[in-house]
């Protein structure tokens, strides 16, 4: 099986604190990491390769330092990686991003499967995966929580929706976006880290992927961010600090009163 995993480098935000006054993220010491939700796609790809043989290729679009994301993917068990980096790509929205990723994946044809994370934790759109499928006219399914069966021309997968799980049979080649229920991503191995250190990573720009310049970057993006605001998140509610049992009882009564006042009980 030849599997392609498009990934994204994002700022590591899980331990970031918020400035209570400005409501902005305290960015000191924030490191770039692989989008945590992409790790499930990488793991799924590596597991399929281990079972059926083949190759997993990670692809990312980003600045030069995004090569670290590819290296980490290789350290986790991917065989190869491609970095899509060029100033013409900068400022791309999900439409222009999925365009470039789709062109790069076309260059890597033939393949059996594309695995994407559900969405990136920074942009939080989840639009690039389905977008790639549309560009390549591939069958696609989103929110995949299990891969049940794999045959030469079909996968049986489970899709997590609001009210339950759909079981779907999907023709190969196809694109799946996966959710974290799918697996437990492995840590990078020493062997993988050595492979990552020794790898040669192609860096592709618009010419290599044969892109139409008008479709690239900010210029090619149909959407425009016109304003950025930092929402005031603090609610300045009443916080009680009971010192003994009696005060705790009063605090819990206060909670019930609050609920009564807001028609919860």
């Amino acid at each position: 099986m030849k599997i392609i995993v498009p990934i994204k480098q994002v700022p590591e935000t899980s331990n970031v604190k918020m400035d209570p006054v400005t409501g902005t993220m305290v960015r000191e010491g924030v490191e770039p990491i692989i989008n945590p939700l992409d790790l499930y796609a990488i793991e799924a790809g590596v597991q399929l390769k281990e079972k059926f043989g083949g190759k997993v290729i990670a692809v990312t679009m980003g600045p030069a330092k995004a090569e670290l994301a590819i290296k980490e993917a290789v350290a986790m068990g991917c065989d190869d990686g491609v970095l899509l980096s060029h100033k013409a790509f900068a400022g791309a929205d999900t439409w222009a991003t999925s365009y470039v990723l789709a062109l790069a994946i076309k260059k890597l044809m033939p393949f059996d499967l594309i695995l994407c994370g559900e969405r990136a934790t920074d942009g939080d759109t989840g639009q690039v995966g389905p977008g790639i499928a549309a560009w390549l006219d591939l069958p696609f399914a989103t929110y995949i929580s299990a891969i049940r069966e794999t045959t030469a021309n079909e996968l049986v997968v489970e899709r997590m929706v609001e009210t339950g799980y759909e079981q779907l049979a999907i023709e190969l080649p196809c694109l799946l976006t996966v959710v974290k229920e799918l697996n437990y991503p492995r840590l990078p191995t020493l062997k993988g880290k050595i492979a990552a250190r020794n790898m040669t990573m192609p860096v592709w720009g618009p010419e290599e992927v044969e892109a139409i310049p008008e479709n690239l970057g900010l210029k090619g993006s149909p959407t425009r961010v016109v304003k950025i605001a930092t929402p005031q998140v603090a609610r300045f509610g009443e916080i009680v600090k009971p010192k003994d049992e009696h005060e705790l009882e009063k605090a819990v009564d206060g909670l019930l009163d609050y609920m009564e006042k807001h028609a919860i009980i």
Partner: protein
Amino acid sequence: MSCKNVWILGEQEDGRIKLVTHELLKRGRALADKRQVELVAVMLGEKIDRDDLQKLFHYGADKVIVVENPGLLHFLPEPYVNTVFHLIKKYEPEIMIASATTTGRTVMPALAVKCPTGLTADCTELDIDPESGNLIQTRPAIGGNILATIKTPMHRPQMATVRPHSNKPLDPDSSRSGEIVYETVDNSLLKSRIRRLEFRKNTEGGANIQDAEIIIAGGKGFKKTENFQMVHDVANLLKGAVGASRDAVDLGWATYPQQIGLSGKTVSPKFYLAVAISGSVQHLAGIKTAENIVAINSDPDAQIFQVANYGIVADLFEAMPLLIEKLKNRLKP
């Protein structure tokens, strides 16, 4: 550009129209009024309940376009994308909005690529410039730490998904009515390379947390899975749903569909009780639109208290049993 009217993409399950459709109609109504155009609801399915279709007018639609075909019974990406794309080409709407559900977030990105046009995900606010018709789309990004306002100035239709349950439907007005147009599409558009084999409904946790008005959520402070039962106890008493932080899900005390936060679900209940959840940026991003947030946490510096309307700094092992007992008393008939 001749594109006109505001469209919403409704959703149905087993022929019954879902609540998110009515929520979208409220959003759409405000835009259509400001722009002085028609609000059109698009419904795809096999056989959609006739009363439910009439009710779309009560909730704000001026016109309803229905496509009924066995191939549209359940959501499958290709038939849905192709059918809606066909309708967009035929009628040329100026705006197309869908709910940011698993359906909306799947159909819309593929449609946007095909149109081609811009798409803004998971908006919490929509407004329109009445002259240009430009949709003014506001959405949280970067873990909810910023609010971005986004436009799609040169492309039509402008497309957006709207966060489910981020607004309530209009009060239904049964005097309103309108035209239902039944469209057919060529069978070639309904071909699917995906087959739906079966469906397994969620049983545990009862209601889907995104639909819940009341959510009780627990974090890693519960220490072990047996203690997490207290979250269920309070949820049962309040007829609410159980949610969990990422830590609690990773520890196996709750399932991924119950995870709240940036890498889980975004919720906007009327009442959110967070117990032993410190309130990471990720978690807070998932509850920002909750109406009332109450927190119980032993750490007075926990971030969750910043967003709480009411908070108790206490050990959950003392506070929760007391809360359960007092709730039982107060809820006695």
